[in-house]
């Protein structure tokens, strides 16, 4: 039994690595593309503030798990609302992950076409990226690969930060409130749902609480990176109107060329793996009620996301940006729906 326990613990850790990567990349992408252009130098603490709704929702969901004495969220919803509750949760989480995957893929393709300047239409590059993703979609392989590469990614991140740090100036933190009055509330509104992947992290493999504080550390990578960005660049440069690709390239814009390439490679690798993670997790969520997932489903979902890239990238991104602030709403909604049922059930029990 101890061998099984240690194996389960190993698989749990790889799963956690996958969720951590998804969280970190999602938070970074949303913070840089939605929050930073609006509030500039105050983006780092605005992002920290935007974590709170996600933490609150996750706390609510964990409370539901506690009330229903279950170890996983689907079981909690099944206990609280029955099979319909489980279906509802699966649909909501599946949809959120699909949106996440679509956003990640759109940003990755935009980075290729406009950021790096690769020749080829967005569709060709979508096919290329989709093809590579198809080869990478493997149930255990993807999470294990993320766990395998984690130290490399962390080392690259630390190296980039260390190279940028000498240019940091503490006084560039000020004024603390950053850009004009009206922008911070707008940025808060834009980023209010940016921490929705936290719910996956906090109700996932670490649901039992062992190592929870270490598990959520990658979540703070985005605010920390934005803080560093604020320290190395004056606020007026951070709010200059910029296209999506330019926003993603901003952190290394004034760095030496070799560091720029390292940053781009790290960005591509993490975003690539995060898109794969989102697709895989989405299909798992959608299949939870049926208890089995057909092998072709993740590939079909991925092909669907790739085909969506035939739409105009600008329009697609505008649509995704409009949807972004509302992502936490369905999750909070289902949590509030399940909460009374869970309380009543606990009282009965």
């Amino acid at each position, binding site marked *: 039994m101890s061998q099984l326990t240690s194996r389960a613990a190993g698989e749990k850790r790889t799963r956690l690595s996958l969720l951590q990567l998804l969280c970190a990349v999602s938070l970074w992408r949303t913070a840089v593309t939605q929050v930073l252009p609006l509030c500039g130098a105050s983006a780092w603490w605005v992002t920290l503030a935007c974590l709170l709704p996600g933490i609150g929702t996750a706390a609510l969901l964990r409370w539901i798990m506690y009330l229903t004495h279950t170890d996983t969220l689907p079981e909690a919803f099944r206990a609280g609302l029955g099979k319909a509750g489980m279906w509802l949760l699966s649909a909501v989480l599946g949809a959120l992950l699909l949106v996440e995957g679509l956003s990640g893929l759109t940003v990755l393709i935009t980075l290729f076409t406009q950021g790096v300047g690769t020749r080829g239409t967005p569709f060709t590059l979508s096919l290329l990226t989709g093809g590579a993703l198809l080869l990478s979609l493997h149930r255990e392989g993807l999470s294990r*690969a993320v766990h395998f590469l984690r130290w490399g990614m962390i080392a690259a991140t630390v190296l980039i930060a260390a190279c940028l740090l000498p240019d940091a100036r503490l006084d560039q933190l000020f004024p603390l409130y950053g850009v004009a009055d009206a922008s911070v509330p707008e940025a808060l509104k834009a980023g209010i749902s940016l921490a929705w992947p936290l719910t996956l992290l906090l109700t996932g493999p670490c649901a039992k609480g062992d190592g929870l504080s270490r598990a959520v550390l990658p979540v703070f990578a985005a605010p920390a990176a934005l803080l560093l960005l604020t320290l190395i660049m004056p606020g007026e440069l951070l709010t200059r109107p910029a296209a999506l690709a330019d926003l993603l390239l901003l952190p290394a814009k004034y760095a030496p060329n070799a560091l720029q390439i390292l940053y*781009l490679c790290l960005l591509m690798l993490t975003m690539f793996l995060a898109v794969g993670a989102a697709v895989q997790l989405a299909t798992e969520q959608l299949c939870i009620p049926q208890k089995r997932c057909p092998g072709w489903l993740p590939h079909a979902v991925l092909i669907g996301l790739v085909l969506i890239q035939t739409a105009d990238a600008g329009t697609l991104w505008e649509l995704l940006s409009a949807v972004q602030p509302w992502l936490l709403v369905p999750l909070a909604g289902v949590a509030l729906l399940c909460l009374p049922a869970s309380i009543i059930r606990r009282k009965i029990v």
Partner: protein
Amino acid sequence: MPITSSIADNRRRMDAALHRDINPDMKVRHFCVFGKDASLYYAEGLCSVDFLQHYVLTPLTELRDAAVPADPDAALREAVYNADVQPAATVSEAVTQVMTGRAVVFVDGMSGALGFDVRVFVRRGISPPLTEQVVLGPHEGFNESLRDCITLIRRILPTPDLISEMRTIGSRYPVGMCVMYLHGVADETTLSRIKARLDGIRADHVLSVGALQQLMEDRPYALLPQCILTERPDRAASMLLEGQIVLLLDGSSQALVLPASIWHLLHTPDDTSARFQYGTFMRVIRLLGLLCALLLPGLFVAFVTFHPEALPVTLLTSILESQASVPFSIPIETLVMLVMFNLIGEAATRVPSVVGSTLGTVSGLILGSAAVDAHLVHPLLLIVVAVASLGSYAVPDYSLGIALRIGQLLMVLAGSVFGVYGMVLMIAVGAVRLCSLTSLGSPFAAPCSPPRAHNPDGVICAPLWMQRWRTWLSAADDRLRVCGPMRRWDRRKR
């Protein structure tokens, strides 16, 4: 077809089965024992004629005029001096025994035959392994005799817990093989899985351990090997102690070890024979060699073609000045050079030793100074490809070295068409494929990913006294190798 008590029938069937009319190697000696007709069948070359004459025929012919005993079978066994006697109930069993070097005796009136072990094969002596040379550590390697291989391992692990289950493999032309494991240490589930796979192999003949590997692997289409092939008995013994299972095949001088992980492919006996500091250092160098082999040519091509801004300007200018007179582009040059280096490696393996030195001179001249002087190749590229090739040869496992060289070409292709970003995508895809590999169901990238409890003996070679555990591949209830400190004499408190 069961053996009957009629000697004439048995002779006819044996002659037909052995194709004696066209197969002069198959010999028969007719004689009398207990006053009955008898025949002795054997294969020339597989038996020792001396043993046959002195220890089988001579005692049997002395019983020519003896009375028929109540139990002729027992009487024959008692009469003959051989240590190993095996009965054969059917003609096919008798034929198999003849083909494996036994002398099979049929007696008129006795249903069944007896096979006496008089085997002696022409075989190679024990010599150092060709592909796994070490500085420290033993210099014995397996040879093609199954019995010798088993003996070599038994000398290292003289314990009755070392089980060697003999079986044959190959439906039409069977060959002997042995499944070796440590009882109580090897995981029973893994063992039963191996046996089930061996039972499920439907091949007419398995020529070598490499062929067996392809029939046993989880994913034969993958680039990386999921088993270990080793020529070293000490390495096989150390893997047995870790709970792995060793398969030996008669006629092959390698052992197949299952299950395996990527780290087993990177470890050598030198790491444990030397002090742990040196072992760690050598492993780090090997890992650097692996990374150089895989990434260096691709990175060179990617940086020069797509990202020259990342190169120091002096290096870049030097490259461009010499590239100005070379007719080929950097990616083409690199691919050609890698193919040439692989060609040299292959030729060096096949070339007869008498002309081996000539090959070295020719390849050095052609690929070295002549190609550079003729402006066919860039001098820096030569160094890059040479370093990458050295890196692939520094990897201890031969199969992994070839896999690296294939991966190298893929990386160069990715770097040629998509720069560093292509290589990053390739690394991501490669990492996923690596981590999705399994070896008999055990994750191939373990204990790194997924994490498994293991000895501190991955990249860092921990001191031997800290390596008190077996790997996750062994049986769960026998993980601890040593209770208490290994250096009990050391009274210093740590």
